[in-house]
């Protein structure tokens, strides 16, 4: 994979590395406490002491963005993980064995996609209650169909190739065929699906927090911060723009990386 000329890969790589470092650091240390309120420092514009200014409670926006980005990042990662793992299991079984199970499961997947996403999330959350873990569960379930469908088509395609038939003839056990032989071949399709999944997960979490059903205070994610910042767009625009930029960069970094990977593999 020629990396030298692949601009997307480079920019995506640098951006994601930078963001990941910021997020990991944010989990242990932030320039200011993310919760301490300070009446005198309310609504201060960006300055050297406060890079992204302060919010309506006098808290440093940059520190909160670091922590919020961490929450959003972890949630999105977990959501994609659940969606991907379950998606692979379901997709591989359906794709490989087919038959009625395949028909039924695919129908269930269609129904899940037919459901308005936020409604399913709301239903799950109203049963399990708000908070980060329940959102991860709710969104995780939502992301299974997309992965399942991608994996199923790949498996259905690869299932009849000769090297798989010969593996079966040699008595290779089914799980080994499924996950040692076929799975690696689905990677070129799976990796972009994972990054797109990550993007959608970050967006989904942000939208749910915007509707007020996502992360509940005092915990803060980029989505909930964006919602709070809407009120001060006029007097403290840096609050909304700073947070919004963080969301965009978080998504952009990984989608550029995925574009780079795709273009790299296509070209080599």
């Amino acid at each position, binding site marked *: 994979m020629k990396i030298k000329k692949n601009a997307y890969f480079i920019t995506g790589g640098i951006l994601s590395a930078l963001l990941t470092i910021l997020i990991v650091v944010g989990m242990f240390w932030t320039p200011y406490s993310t919760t301490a309120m300070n009446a005198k420092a309310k609504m201060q514009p960006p300055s050297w002491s406060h890079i992204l200014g302060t919010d309506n409670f006098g808290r440093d926006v940059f520190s909160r963005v670091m922590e919020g980005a961490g929450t959003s990042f972890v949630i999105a990662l977990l959501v994609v993980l659940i969606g991907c793992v379950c998606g692979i299991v379901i997709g591989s079984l359906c794709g490989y064995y087919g038959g009625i199970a395949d028909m039924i499961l695919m129908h269930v997947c*269609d129904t899940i996609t*037919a459901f308005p996403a*936020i409604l399913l999330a709301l239903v799950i959350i109203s049963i399990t209650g708000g908070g980060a873990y329940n959102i991860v569960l709710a969104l995780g379930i939502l992301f299974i169909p997309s992965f399942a469908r991608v994996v199923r088509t790949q498996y259905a395609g690869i299932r009849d190739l000769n090297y798989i038939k010969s593996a079966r003839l040699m008595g290779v056990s089914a799980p080994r065929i499924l996950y040692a032989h076929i799975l690696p071949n689905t990677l070129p399709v799976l990796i972009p699906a994972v990054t797109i999944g990550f993007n959608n997960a970050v967006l989904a979490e942000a939208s749910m927090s915007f*509707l007020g059903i996502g992360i509940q205070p005092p915990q803060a994610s980029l989505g909930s911060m964006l919602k709070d910042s809407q009120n001060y767009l006029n007097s403290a*625009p840096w609050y909304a723009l700073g947070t919004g930029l963080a969301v965009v960069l978080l998504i*952009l970094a990984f*989608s550029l990386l995925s574009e780079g990977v795709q273009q790299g593999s296509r070209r080599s």
Partner: protein
Amino acid sequence: MKLVLKKIISLIITLFIVSLLAFLAFQIIPGDPTTKLLGTNATPEKVAQLRSQLGLDRPVLIRYMDWLVSFVKGEFGTSYTYNRAVSTLLADKLPVTVLLTVLSFLITAAVSVPIGIWAGSTRNKWVDHVFVILDQVLMAIPPFFFGMVSCFVFGIVLRWFMPGSFISLSESFSGCVSYLILPAVCLALPRIAMTVRMLRSSIQEELTQNYVYTARSRGLSRSGIMRRHILKNAMIPVVTFLAVSAAEIMTGTIIIEQVFTIPGTGRLLVSSIGNRDFPVVQAIIVILAAWIVIVNFTADMLNHWMDPRLRQ
């Protein structure tokens, strides 16, 4: 034809499952409607009496059948919070959301197809990079953030547009449409980016096909080849994508209506879920799900109609 029949049957089955799931979902959710209606002076006998009056004590499946029959007849029950028939509530909310969805879809199609064709047929490198970057950025911006900022920029800074001054359909159609344009654009932008990118790569792929050489050997000009040969081939995957995005747009209205305070089914759905207003939520879900399933079905049909190879 057999294929179409099979598709219709699976469509109906999915709708059935969705309505059943929607119905069951609300049995699980905590908060019994009777506590809502009776409030604090809910004595056990009153609760029991009301439950039987509402028929809540009958087994779930019978209640589901009951609900389905009345649903098909168009009676969706009465809303708890607004104390009026759900059908009248939806009568003035659904048109707004449908108008917003159609407007956003038209903008998506009207903008992305010409740009996609132009992007596909130019050969210079820089155009490619510009489109890839633009597409990535547009898809990375959360729609409500885009709505928020455009509300601020157009509304408060430039004063071109008055967020919150929604003019209802009954008052003036043009007033309503002009208010819905900015939200529709916010909804459309990420989809325009995706469509342009898809159309561009689809055209570039078709350009490498042998039939293009045949066409050139007939003496067709470059634009003639594009118009008479490449466009239809390149549009096939794009048309299906556009049709599917019509379903996504409808789901997207749920968020956009919150940002632009548009009294559509999206906002009603969010507040009704919060208020555990089951009849309203169930009606909206089934309508939304029906819209998504029907749109996917049309996408399939369009695909078959446009590509003769699929027509066995």
